[in-house]
């Protein structure tokens, strides 16, 4: 549950470089990925010493530390004031200020990220990851150092989160720490669980569903002063219903 941290690292790297240096969006994106990769490698080695509930608590702790850094490292991040005026990308004369062009760019990154995830899942490496999920002791008896596999996939997912953060910062043109709280990691986790564990299409479906749900709920007619809270209630009810009646998610292959 550290995704919001790496998402934030990508977003802040992009925001800081685009507003304070001459580096372009794609340079900032690469640097964001590099920093997220390095940090995830470091924290991954530390977190690998924990298992089960303690691992989950460790990841929450890391997310909180990164959020604290975004909030308090004011010289760099401008703290709670956030960073405004982040520019949109430009490549080969194409300006992505136009929302339609940005949508195309985001779709290209989505296809790239999906392809990488699909390649990983279908490779022998992915097969070992599935076996680790099923029974870590048995797969280690077969000669696999599971720590290395878990570390590598952790780093890959951190790099992907950093890409999402870079795109987010450039799209919104303003970021502040509130977008990278533990709650954001929970939201990402809810997307995966809702869509379906162990299924890439399920993750996409979960994202579409939970991102578009607030837009649909505009038409429900909740009073405006409790609208935000009601949205959280609806999320909670959906997750409880899923846990009760469809623990593997909408199109998942694996039950928790």
């Amino acid at each position: 549950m550290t995704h919001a941290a790496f998402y934030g690292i990508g977003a802040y790297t992009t925001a800081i470089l685009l507003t304070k240096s001459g580096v372009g969006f794609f340079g900032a994106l690469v640097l964001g990925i590099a920093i997220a990769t390095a940090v995830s490698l470091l924290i991954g080695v530390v977190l690998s010493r924990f298992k089960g509930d303690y691992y989950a608590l460790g990841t929450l702790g890391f997310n909180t530390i990164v959020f604290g850094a975004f909030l308090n490292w004011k010289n760099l991040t401008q703290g709670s004031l956030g960073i405004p005026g982040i520019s949109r990308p430009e490549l080969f004369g194409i300006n992505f200020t136009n929302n339609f062009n940005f949508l195309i760019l985001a779709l290209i990154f989505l296809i790239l990220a999906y392809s990488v995830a699909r390649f990983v899942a279908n490779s022998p490496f992915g097969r070992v990851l599935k076996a680790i999920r099923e029974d870590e002791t048995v797969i280690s008896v077969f000669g696999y150092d599971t720590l290395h596999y878990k570390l590598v996939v952790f780093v890959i997912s951190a790099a992907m989160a950093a890409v999402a953060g870079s795109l987010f910062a450039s799209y919104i043109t303003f970021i502040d720490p509130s977008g990278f709280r533990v709650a954001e990691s929970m939201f990402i986790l809810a997307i995966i669980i809702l869509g379906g564990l162990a299924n890439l299409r399920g993750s996409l479906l979960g994202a579409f569903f939970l991102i578009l749900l607030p837009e649909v709920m505009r038409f429900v007619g909740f009073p405006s002063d409790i609208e935000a809270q009601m949205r959280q209630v609806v999320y909670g009810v959906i997750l409880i219903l899923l846990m009760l009646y469809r623990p593997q998610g909408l199109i998942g292959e694996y039950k928790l």
Partner: protein
Amino acid sequence: MKIIETNNLIKRFDGVHAVDRLSIGIEKGQITGIVGPNGSGKTTLIDLLSGVLEIDGGEIIIDGTKKISRLLPHQVSLYGITRTFQNVRLFEQMTVLDNILVAETERNVFGSFFEGHAQCHYKTAEEVLRKVGLLENKNRLAVSLSYGQRKLLEIARVLAMKSRIYLFDEPFAGLFPEMRKIISSIIQELKRENKTVILVEHDMGLIRELCEHILVMDEGKLLAQGDPGSVLGKREVIEAYLGR
């Protein structure tokens, strides 16, 4: 030549000695049976030899000189030791074929992104599945197999490892005669290939049929050892099984 030896091996659970200063030697290329009443430490010994459990004392030596006492399971595996489990442990949500292929994949993390010898691996996987009669089920999920088929899949998975030393923990338990025949012939074939087999088993008929040497354990200690014919008739062995 002894391929595995233990010297004063100790494993305790909450103060209870599951394995108590056990010193044994396993001959290379032989089928060695380990027998004893329930709770005598047979499975614990297999767990210790395969690195699944940490030892509390003593040492495990392989090939006469190499100490593997403190190694993790994946490091023990590098010495050519593989095993099955008393309660079958498959990768349930993976297909039968994937359960086998995972035993063959490149162990190096970055090498495993690309299936370097895919055709060769598929061929071996199909070969071992054919041997245990599961080839037609290769695309089924392991969780959907019957109890006997699950046992056979676990045997096929260790065969795909092409190891030197095979530890089988009650491979015949609860199986129909036809399936027992298949496993029995596989173990005999391993012997013909000069592999070392350690077989934990309660069925004395099978022990007599397959093993050249047996170790009898009781309360974590070695009670007797020798050829099955002479050892199984000993009074203390009968008493250990039936009670004094």
